[in-house]
């Protein structure tokens, strides 16, 4: 066990798995840290966020591959290589960039197994950065995972803790289907205890962050952290909140959520993405169908508004669901009295 940041946990996952499996490669823009130029072959920084720091030095240019800015070629190359013997990790620097390369992800990699009649899936991982919080504006701050989760054939991971990030990323690399691994930029500095060796966390198993009896709150990715904080505040008011971190959106562990609703009768979902066809809507809709008889209050969706992410820091702060908003909304449904 070592105390490390989520950023370090991600790097560590790649490092330990690349040591174990020579077929794992990493490709993307500046993942080595920049080839060419006047700097020579010295120490490389390992990506704009330093997430791949040290990997080039250890694994060399054949396995840590800097690419031109050509996301379709990067994703397609990873997909093609995954069909022919490798387990590539392809970095999509910001998830917002999916628009220039999504065909290779959703029409190619994600569909191989099905449309080729199960000859093979695409064992590749797309690591990508999501989320608002650093003032980067409308094209660098989005939480577009609902679009990924919508696609049959893709698996979608949204880790919250360093421990989960490492275990889920190793699982993603070993998985025989394409996985999009969404790293929230505001979580990189989160710290936690992480085992040194390789370990995996099964997909489709939610983590119950804290138990409670009055309201079930599902918090997606970073929102699980905020929900946890809200739960502490609410508990002081006598409202007992069960917080669930799904960890993966596709597959999604609805059983854990349904079990919780059976107990609490109340559901709130906190999702940083925009509301329409969001994962908050997805969870709410399943609950409305499968937990109908348990529900004792309207389902509450706490999401970003249906707007782009504004650059201004005050607007951005208002855009992202906050602890205060979660507290207020959960309080409301916990006070809800059925008219019947």
């Amino acid at each position, binding site marked *: 066990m070592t105390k490390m940041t989520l950023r370090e946990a991600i790097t560590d996952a790649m490092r330990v798995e690349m040591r174990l499996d020579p077929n794992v490669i990493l490709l993307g823009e500046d993942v080595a840290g920049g080839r060419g130029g006047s700097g020579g072959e010295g120490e490389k920084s390992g990506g704009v966020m330093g997430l791949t720091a040290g990997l080039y030095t250890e694994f060399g240019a054949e*396995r840590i591959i800097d690419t031109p800015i050509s996301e*379709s070629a990067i994703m397609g*190359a990873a997909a*093609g*290589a995954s069909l022919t013997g490798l387990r590539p990790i392809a970095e999509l620097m910001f998830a917002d960039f999916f628009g220039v390369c999504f065909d290779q992800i959703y029409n190619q990699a994600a569909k191989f197994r099905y449309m*080729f*009649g199960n*000859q093979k899936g695409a064992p590749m991982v797309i690591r990508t950065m999501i989320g608002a919080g650093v003032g980067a504006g409308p094209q660098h701050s989005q939480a577009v995972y609902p679009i990924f989760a919508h696609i049959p054939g893709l698996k979608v991971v949204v880790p919250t803790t360093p421990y989960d990030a490492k275990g889920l990323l190793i699982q993603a690399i070993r998985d025989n289907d394409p996985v999009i691994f969404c790293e929230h930029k505001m979580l990189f500095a989160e710290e936690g205890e992480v085992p040194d060796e390789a370990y995996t966390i099964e997909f489709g198993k939610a983590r119950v962050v804290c138990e409670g009896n009055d309201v079930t709150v599902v918090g997606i990715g970073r929102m699980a952290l905020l929900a946890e904080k809200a739960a502490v505040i609410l508990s002081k008011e006598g409202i007992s909140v069960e917080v669930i971190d799904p960890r993966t959106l596709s597959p999604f562990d609805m059983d854990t959520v349904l079990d919780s609703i059976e107990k609490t009768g109340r559901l709130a979902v906190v999702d940083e993405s925009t509301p329409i066809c969001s994962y908050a809507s997805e969870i709410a809709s399943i609950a409305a169908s499968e937990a109908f008889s348990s529900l004792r209050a309207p389902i509450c969706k706490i999401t970003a508004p249906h707007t782009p992410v504004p650059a201004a820091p005050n607007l951005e702060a208002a855009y992202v669901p906050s602890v205060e908003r979660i507290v207020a909304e959960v309080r409301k449904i916990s006070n809800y009295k059925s008219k019947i």
Partner: protein
Amino acid sequence: MQLSRDDLREAYTTMKRIRVFEERMRTEFQKGEMPGFVHLYCGQEAIATGVCMHLSNTDNIGSTHRGHGHCIAKGCDVKDMALEIYCREDGLCKGKGGSMHIADLSKGMLGANAIVGGSPPLAVGAALAAKTLKNKAVAVAFIGDGASNQGTVFEAMNLAVVLKLPVIFVYENNGYAEFTGIDYHCGAVDITTRSSGFGMPAVKVDGTDFFAVHDVMREAVERARSGDGPTSIECEALRWYGHYEGDPQAYRSKTEVKEIKANKDPLEIFKQKVLEKELMENVEFEEINSLIEKEVDDAIKLALNSPLPPLSSLEENVYESY
């Protein structure tokens, strides 16, 4: 020509197999019993054949919506193909892919592709795997003249040059992208100048001449296998039929089609050259012809009499486990 008699027989057999298969697809499609769209390869047989004769099962190709010819040249069984095109349970893709998604990974055929420009990045990936695994395999991307305008193709080319990957980009310039002529849709003098602009050797050949294609491909494959990076080959060969079966071809003069059928038939051109040099005899051609006719007939009949996939398969094979 460094081709043995066996090589020549093989080349002709492949071209003939493509021709007969596609002509049969055409008549069968017209009966209205085939699902989806069908895009025929007639007129372009020498390209797939000349290219794929240099490849083994460990070499990979990325194909297009017009993929039957590539499948056959890459060694797919016509029975398995027919079953898939008719979307039968025992088809190559269990009936889930159909004509535009046929794939046979065991033969290094990474799939027809219904997305124009979809497969070049995949072929580059196969080449990256070959380079990483040091297995000397090469990869080929087939690219229509129309597909040459898709950004993915250029990205794939540049990445291949940057990483010096063993991949060959084969343009199949059949004159048209759907209804649009290449003289309109390609801004440059030709496609080749664009590829060479990306920093790789780029050559142009007559795609109706098997020997021309086979020759330039030999060099390209050698270059790739010896680690010298990608090559681009443009093969010109007009298509005989519509973009898809049923296309009335208002955008095209009748004389053009007549002319190419009369003078640019890849099989006839091959035959003449080989007969002239007395490398094969007429009777051999006829022998092959009748074998192929039967083979294709058997395949179609098998497909027509085979069951569709069971409904239980609808939700299967989306993931290995979920």
